[in-house]
């Protein structure tokens, strides 16, 4: 019994289908708890006022935006090395979720930045790298959509994902370097690890857990959908011939 057994599409669907609603509703419940906790029952920060509450959405979504890409990278590697279709489809299924997470992170960041930094958008290294990540997601999805043959699409998107990962990391450091010469006042510091009190930390942890579970549930559900869609294609092709 090894994990590769789940690479069989039928087995994958059979195993995950009962789990999807559990995970989905569970994650929603946890999210509700975390967000309600964060929204109603945490104090305001003495410096940031109530905008500190935005971080209960911002931090988890930003985390998942990066982790979704990382998951796609791992899935792409598995596809290229072991050629399990489920893996390629899982990478495809994760991309739109990553886009949404990136959008949430960017939007909440902008909304927070407006009162705090006095601007919706600053070319801060982190913000800029997220914008670039967003572009990578768009290119990846566009490539999947553009290619007719499923195996070719899986191969090419996997290669793109790997090369893109290298360049995404490179961009992160390049952007860091690029903004050194420009303004970077102390108030722009986004370092969350510093002076985060437990009052803020626990609800944030709950929210992160909720986002992670939601991501897993969505990926499983969407992967099953992609498997079924491909089966439809195969059946129709067989009937036509």
């Amino acid at each position, binding site marked *: 019994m090894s994990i590769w057994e789940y690479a069989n599409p039928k087995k994958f669907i059979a195993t995950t289908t009962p789990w999807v609603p559990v995970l989905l509703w569970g994650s929603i419940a946890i999210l509700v708890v975390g967000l309600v906790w964060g929204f109603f029952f945490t104090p305001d920060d003495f410096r940031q006022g109530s905008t500190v*509450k935005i971080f209960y959405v911002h931090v988890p979504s930003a985390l998942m935006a990066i982790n979704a890409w990382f998951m796609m990278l791992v899935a792409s590697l598995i596809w290229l090395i072991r050629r399990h279709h489920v893996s390629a489809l899982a990478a495809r299924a994760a991309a739109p979720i990553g886009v949404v997470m990136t959008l*949430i992170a960017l939007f909440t960041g902008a909304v927070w930045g407006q009162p705090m930094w006095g601007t919706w958008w600053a070319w801060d290294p982190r913000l800029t790298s997220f914008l670039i990540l967003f572009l990578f997601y768009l290119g990846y999805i566009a490539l999947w959509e553009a290619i007719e043959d499923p195996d070719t699409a899986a191969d090419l998107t996997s290669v793109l994902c790997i090369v893109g990962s290298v360049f995404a990391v490179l961009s992160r450091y390049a952007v860091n370097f690029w903004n050194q010469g420009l303004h970077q006042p102390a108030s722009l510091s986004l370092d969350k690890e510093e002076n985060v009190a437990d009052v803020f930390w626990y609800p944030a942890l709950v929210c992160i857990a909720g986002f992670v579970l939601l991501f897993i549930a969505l990926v499983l559900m969407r992967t099953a959908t992609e498997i079924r869609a491909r089966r439809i294609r195969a059946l129709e092709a067989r*009937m036509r011939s």
Partner: protein
Amino acid sequence: MPDLGKYATEVLLAYGVSIGLLVVIVALSMRRARKVRAQLDQVEARKGPRK
């Protein structure tokens, strides 16, 4: 409703849009899942009698 002070608009906007986006992706995923599943059932049913 907690007192959000002068940043009420920002906080509510951030929460509203984020939750909205999450709902959209969940709804889209579920709708597509349902559609594809129904379609697959249909195709399988069509295939069955011919065999």
